[in-house]
């Protein structure tokens, strides 16, 4: 696109890709069954929708705990640390540059998979939206135990309202997120990366200091990627 040479780079490890698609599936199922429970349509049948929703919801909670564990132990969480540096450049790019065919101001690198806008978006989703959804969902599920757990000051309509609000948030995030996957150098470049782990990125882009993972074993981490 810009005449710069593209290099095939290994961006996402197997676990990351697995987690990404697992979570996609779980959230999709939760959305589909959740809105059926909400009364929007009939698909699986109410009873089945409830059973699937509760099963998948609880499953997701457990899987998410593993994801958090992975984030913490691998230090990958640092990729979500928010920054305002270049944030406006990125916003500017998506508002104008992208139409002119400009290169992305903060291309992906193994060490910095998320640009500043993504960081803030993913962080708020992972730190706020999803936990809200998980906590409200868990409380909703445990409704019958509230009294035993000393939670009977909670109100079911309030918990349900938060859960539904969260569901809309998740759905609208999904819409935006799916669209954003098409903004790579080809329409399916990002999707391909999340499936195979590999993405073509412009050659010779250096990590800037603020993007770097501050971890000693950086070199070691780099060599994890099989050579192309």
């Amino acid at each position, binding site marked *: 696109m810009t005449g710069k040479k593209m290099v095939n780079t290994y961006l996402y490890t197997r676990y990351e890709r697995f987690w990404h698609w697992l979570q996609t599936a779980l959230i999709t199922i939760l959305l589909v069954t959740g809105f059926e429970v909400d*009364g929007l349509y009939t698909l699986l049948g109410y*009873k089945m929708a409830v059973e699937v929703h509760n099963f998948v919801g609880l499953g997701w909670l457990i899987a998410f705990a593993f994801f958090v564990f992975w984030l913490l132990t691998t230090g990958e969480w640092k990729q979500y640390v928010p920054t305002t540096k270049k944030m406006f450049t990125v916003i500017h790019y998506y508002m104008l540059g992208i*139409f002119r065919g400009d290169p992305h101001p903060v291309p992906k690198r193994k060490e910095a998979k998320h640009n500043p806008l993504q960081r803030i978006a993913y962080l708020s989703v992972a730190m706020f939206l999803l936990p809200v959804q998980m906590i409200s969902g868990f409380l909703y599920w445990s409704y*019958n135990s509230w009294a035993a757990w000393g939670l009977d000051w909670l109100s079911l309509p309030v918990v349900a309202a938060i859960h539904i*609000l969260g569901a*809309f948030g998740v*759905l609208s995030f999904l819409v*935006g997120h799916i669209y954003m996957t098409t903004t790579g150098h080809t329409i399916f470049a990002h999707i391909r990366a999340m499936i195979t782990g590999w993405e073509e990125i412009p050659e010779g882009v250096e990590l800037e200091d603020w993007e770097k993972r501050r971890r000693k074993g950086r070199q070691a981490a780099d060599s994890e990627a099989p050579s192309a």
Partner: protein
Amino acid sequence: MKRLAFFISAWACAATMLLGLAGIPTARAQLEVLDENQAPGRTMAQQATKERQIWITADHSRHAILQNEFKSGPEVTKACLSCHELAAGQFHKTIHWTWLDPNVPAGERIGKAGHSINNFCINLNGNEPRCTSCHAGYGWRDSSFNFNDEAAVDCLVCHEQTGTYKKFPTGAGHPVQTPTVFKGNNKTYNPPDWNKVAQSVGRPTRTNCGTCHFYGGGGDGVKHGDIDSSLAKPNKALDVHMGLDGQDFDCVRCHTTTLHNIAGRTYATPAATSRKSLIEDDLASKIMCESCHSSTPHKPGIKANDHTDKVACQSCHIPEFARVNATKMAWDWSKAGQKKDGKPYAAKGPHGKPSYDSKKGEFRWEKDVKPAYFWFNGAINAITARDTIDPSQPVAINWPAGSRDDENARIFPFKVHEGKQPYDKINKTLLIPKLFGPKGSGAYWAEYDWKKALDKGMQAAGLSFSGEYDFVETSYVFPITHMVAPKENVVACIECHSTEGRLASLAGFYMPGRDDFKTINVFGWILVLGTLVAVTFHGLGRVISSSRKEG
């Protein structure tokens, strides 16, 4: 020697193995009862009721006193009491005898013999000889009946097993002396073969109880909706407990009895005060589902177990009532009195049931009726003919007690019978008409004059009537608890968890699938569609700009 030892031990081994094999079928049989795939509450109930063998030590057909010649019911009763000295005394204390609520002071006159009212034939007072054909007694012809007369107890109607004992519809509880035709149904009533009937006595069966309770309100299925003649020989599809191909329960299997007092609700007194299972209290009455099934009867992890605190078993397990015979759903007395060619007449409507009768007015019958649902703590409150009403709107004659905030109340199914019946325009009370009686007595069914009938009826009840009457719409509820359907026919979740569902009109609590938050939904869809619109335009922009560059 060694050989012998080997031989013996080999034989012992073989014998043990053979015996072991023989034991397998026994173990299998046990497994069938304790099927692990079956809901635990069902297994519990099966164990609580299995192998019930009734045995008795007396053969009434051999009792000398029952060989005597009898000419009337009271003579038989005296014979019964010659051995069962305490029976009449016990029975006199029960509501089956007094027709008054035993749990409130008699002075309050709560009960059908008192001032309680319904929207069927309204009240007993002034109409005794007709109504008391369903009294387990003899001779309650008017208010002068002697309630202390032991010989007036009718043992036979509840205990005889020939099925031939019939009290005459207008005989104040007596059978006929000579064959007589009842004009109401053109059937001939025969005098009982007293010896045969008396010698047949046993524990009450469904048919005994059904003699009156199937026909409450003067006809099959008029009153209850979940109790009618179809329960005499039901199949399992109609009632899992009473079905002949199921458990074949008699009424008294659940309506357990002490001292002739039969368990069940009486007006504002719930059938049971606590929801205990027999495991928690082996002397608890068996009147609640939980008595045998426990309060978490479904398999562990099944959502229905979470519902049992607020939803009665009946709500899901009785999808419709009146599933075989139709039941009366509405009765409009204001239409009574119309004539054809100057004569009273009757007309048949759907389900082969009467739709009009000059004596009674207009009716609506329905089959396979979906219940109405209300919060219910087991008590039913009611007004009497003494209470003031507001005739500007439909009057609830009785209504289930309980609310969402009442911890003993659960959502429970009901039949709601709508009526239109006379009330006093000046005193603002419901009125009791004298319906039954000969010409000249003022009875409505003889003279078709409301004013006279109401005057006589209120007089018989000892209440005042201003002389001005009109008709007011009323409602009367019956809890639905019989006709429990097989589990395959249970009410599906969506039938309540939906906007137009069975619980659409129960307010005051949030229910997923039924309730929604308007603002959140509007906001949510704006958010989602907004995002969609934004990305669509962004995408279009990219397409256009890139095609421009290329072109």
